[in-house]
């Protein structure tokens, strides 16, 4: 029987609104890479973004465990879950609020905020809390974003 009073340590991927297609691709890529590198991954997002992933990966080869964002925050606040690293995908102000929340709730964890979309620079400028930022103008094409993710995480560049 597992000890439910002991917080569970995971790598956490927090996804924002799924309207920018690049997020879907980079989420699956991050999931693959983090799990390949040994992380016990949890993906959190709203039901739409989680359903996009579940339909894309029905056998869960890449995505692993998922959780609705509100529930994930509850688990962290109530200290039933902890996460390190925490990666947040953000292409709007709301997602930056979620990243700031994760910074506050997980003060000692590595926090990487991936800021993308049509005009990511103003959004990136609004991030005034400690974190690693990946900033790239990307809506449909995830390739430059993927390259920067590889750089920040120290992953070897793939040929695809």
């Amino acid at each position, binding site marked *: 029987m597992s000890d439910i009073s002991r917080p569970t340590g995971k790598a956490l991927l927090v996804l924002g609104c799924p309207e920018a297609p690049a997020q879907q691709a980079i989420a699956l890529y991050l999931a693959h890479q983090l799990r390949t590198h040994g992380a016990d991954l949890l993906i959190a997002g709203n039901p739409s973004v989680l359903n996009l992933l579940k339909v894309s990966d029905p056998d869960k080869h890449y995505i692993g465990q998922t959780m609705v964002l*509100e529930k994930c925050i509850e688990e*962290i606040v109530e200290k039933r879950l902890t996460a390190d690293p925490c990666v947040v995908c953000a292409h*709007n102000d*709301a*997602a930056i609020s979620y990243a700031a929340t994760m910074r506050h709730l997980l003060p000692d964890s590595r926090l990487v905020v991936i800021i993308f979309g049509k005009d990511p620079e103003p959004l990136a400028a609004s991030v005034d809390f400690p974190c690693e930022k990946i900033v790239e103008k990307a809506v449909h094409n995830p390739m430059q974003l993927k390259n920067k993710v590889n750089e920040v995480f120290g992953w070897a560049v793939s040929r695809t």
Partner: protein
Amino acid sequence: MGCIENLKYEMLLPLGASFKECREYVEKNFKEVWYVDPGYKLFDEYIIGLPPIALGLDLGKIVFPYTKPCHGTYLLLVEDADEADRVRKTARKKK
């Protein structure tokens, strides 16, 4: 909006307001301002945002930001005297 969606609320700022716009609105328009951190529980929901999160109180009315991933931050007003009193006992007052 979970439990908050079931409350009788008034929306003070239109959809798509930024979190900082919500904070500035509360600080500018309410005499009684209290601050909480992300994860503070209000109406059985955990509040999201950049700390410090400003809450406005006016007798039994509470004004607070509520963030949804696809819509941005709503600034909502809900009348609940008991919850307002709980905020006064548990939050930090603006100096």
